[in-house]
């Protein structure tokens, strides 16, 4: 009798042991849904600041209010996690319908096999709104467009006019030697001439790359896709960067996006090289009038210099598993790029997100924004700088498939760190960078 009770309890416990894990596995909730009756499109974007999330949501709400067949639902992702997350999402067929991207991330996602070409949509939108060539080029490969360009970003030299005036400097530097001289003149006591990042991150990658572009080292791949990083122009750009770091705050070795901007706004640094996110918070954070914020093109090398700056368009890929959902995703992207909606979308971060279409650049929905109006001169300068901008792996008509492996490892930033933190010579660090890049693209 007692043995029977024990057996019964044992059977119940075993059944529980078997059922629990099965139950745990059964409740899968993929991000995309995607079932036959599911009329919701999932959109993944990586713009995490709350103001951007809210502004994107407004545009999405406006689209959903038009009663489309497929409504859009946004999910905010992290740039640090997205590489792993999209890979497993595609494997489990739970990828989003729309995924925001930048050119090098696109080269990573495409081989996963879920990205749909959007050539006809891009051509249609181009005819209707006219994209700039730089906006589209980085997304064209194998005679197809793989993403719809949405907004551009470009770096400028930002400077504090009030601190320049105090130091007796009357105009922004145009050449590397002027930049370095001004940085030295502006360094005094707790104030540094410039704040440039040297952390192992994308921020450092991008700032050094802007200087590489203006020094003629922007293209570090041969026509056959071989790495050609180790050249005198790269060494010169790195030498300049190392000199600028000497005029930067002492913890620049850990700087990313935010720290140089904080130093700039607090007056602890008189110059910085970054994108248009410097506009909106300047008055509030610095306590200075908008007229104290100066902007200029990235200074060029004294010999052999050329105009340039890192510039890239952010875009949206369509990964819907079936044609009907893909059409729904395309309808949403058409809606975003309509001039009356586009400005609201761009002003998620006014000044940072730049229009990529001709009618978008003149649309009142964008130009009427208070920040855009207040800093009209700098906004125009950024649009002008965009024309000479480029991004590693995509300059001079290139499309380097393996560029994601170079940017993913922050090899440019690591090269900077070897000079700044380890005291290596720029030539040795560039040689090391060449080896790392070769290894990265060869595997």
């Amino acid at each position, binding site marked *: 009798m007692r043995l029977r009770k*024990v057996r019964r309890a044992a059977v119940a*416990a075993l059944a529980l042991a*078997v059922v629990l894990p099965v139950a745990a596995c059964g409740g899968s909730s993929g991000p995309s849904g995607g079932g036959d009756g599911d009329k919701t499109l999932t959109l993944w974007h990586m713009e995490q600041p709350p103001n951007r999330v809210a502004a994107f949501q407004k545009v999405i709400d406006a689209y959903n209010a038009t009663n489309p067949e497929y409504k859009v639902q946004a999910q905010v992702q992290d740039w640090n996690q997205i*590489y792993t997350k999209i890979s497993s999402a595609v494997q489990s067929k739970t990828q989003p319908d729309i995924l925001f991207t930048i050119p090098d991330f696109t080269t990573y996602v495409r*081989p996963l096999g879920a990205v749909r070409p959007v050539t006809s949509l891009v051509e249609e939108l181009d005819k209707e709104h006219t994209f700039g060539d730089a906006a589209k080029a980085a997304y064209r490969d194998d005679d197809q467009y793989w993403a719809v360009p949405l907004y551009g970003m470009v770096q400028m030299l930002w400077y504090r006019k009030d601190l320049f005036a105090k130091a007796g400097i009357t105009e922004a530097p145009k050449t590397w030697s002027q930049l370095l001289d001004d940085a030295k003149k502006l360094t005094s006591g707790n104030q540094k001439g410039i704040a440039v990042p040297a*952390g192992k991150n994308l921020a450092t990658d991008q700032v050094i790359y802007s200087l590489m572009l203006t020094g003629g080292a922007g293209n570090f791949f041969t026509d056959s896709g071989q790495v050609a990083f180790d050249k005198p122009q790269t060494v010169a750009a790195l030498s300049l960067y190392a000199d600028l770091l000497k005029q930067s705050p002492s*913890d620049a*070795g850990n700087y990313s996006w935010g720290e140089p901007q*904080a130093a700039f706004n607090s007056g602890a640094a008189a110059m910085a090289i970054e994108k248009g996110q410097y506009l909106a918070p300047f008055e509030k954070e610095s306590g200075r009038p908008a007229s104290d914020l100066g902007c200029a093109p990235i200074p060029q090398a004294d010999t052999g210099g050329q105009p340039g700056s890192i510039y890239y368009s952010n875009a949206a890929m369509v990964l819907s598993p079936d044609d009907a959902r893909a059409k729904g995703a395309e309808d949403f992207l058409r809606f975003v790029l309509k001039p009356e909606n586009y400005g609201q979308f761009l002003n998620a971060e006014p000044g940072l997100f730049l229009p990529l279409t001709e009618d978008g650049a003149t649309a009142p929905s964008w130009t009427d924004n208070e920040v855009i109006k207040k800093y009209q001169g700098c906004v125009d300068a950024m649009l002008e700088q965009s024309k000479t901008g480029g991004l590693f792996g995509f300059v001079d008509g290139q499309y380097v498939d393996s560029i994601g492996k170079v940017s993913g490892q922050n090899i440019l930033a690591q090269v900077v760190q070897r000079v700044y933190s380890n005291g290596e010579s720029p030539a040795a660090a560039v040689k090391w960078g060449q080896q790392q890049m070769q290894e990265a693209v060869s595997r």
Partner: protein
Amino acid sequence: MSGRSAVPGVQGVALRARAAGHRRPWTRHLLGYALVAPLVLLMVGVIGYPLLNTVLLSFQDQGVVGSNSTYVGFENYGRALGDGEFWAAIGRSGIWLVGNLVVQTVIAFVTALVIGGNGRWARASRTWTLFPWVIPTVAVAVIWQWLSNSNYGVVPKAASAVGIDGLGSPFGDSALAMPALILMNSWHWFPLGAVVIYGAMRTIPGEIYEAARVDGANAWRTFWRITFPLLQPVLFALGLVGSLWSFNIVDSIYLVTKGGPADATTTAPVFIYNKAFNEFQASDAAAVSVVTIILLAALAFFYIRVARPKEDQ
């Protein structure tokens, strides 16, 4: 508890049964097996399966996590063992482990002795000592970065006020980043050690201290002859668990320095993370993980052999 039965006579019966070669029928044990089955299945699911998967992955040539791959034998192991950067990361992991172990143990011991007192301050500090422990790691990382930021940090501002200008964040200095991270991590986790040591100290009978005082032992001698030896089993367990825990930390390091500057804080787990998710070499990362697991297991085995308290041997 030495494993001796609490019920008089039961152990003797069991021993006699075993000596006589009698074995209980397996059905008698069925309930026991059934009750532990959920836990065993869970362990197999969450530890055994990923571990097996990692080993299998280490013999392939997978790049992006989850992408197609083929079998390449021991190629990844050869590359891992010949990679100087991997061994440098293992070396930094050693520094990280020993640094955390020493700093956390010292702070925890001092804290436990302080909060073990009977004064009002000692009693009050028993609560706020736990404060760093309850702060999420992300917040700890942000707090320490804020404190030390050269632009708006409290520490550089205070230093500037006393005439020390230009003090930057130690996290941006390749020579100071590792010690600063060890200090930050120790600050975060020392309350755990302090509470465990404090709890263990409370179990030492007061009569022993009373007798020592009667014999004329001073505080120093009492600590080294009574408190420390009696706490050895607890310190042994704390050291083992704490070391393994510290070794595997990625979040604190990654949030503050991402392994920089110039790899100065790239420990083995950070190295593995970078391999898998920044360099997109999943199989290489798996091979390095397996080598690290073996090294860690050997270290744990060595620690148990050397540091195990004598009464348990």
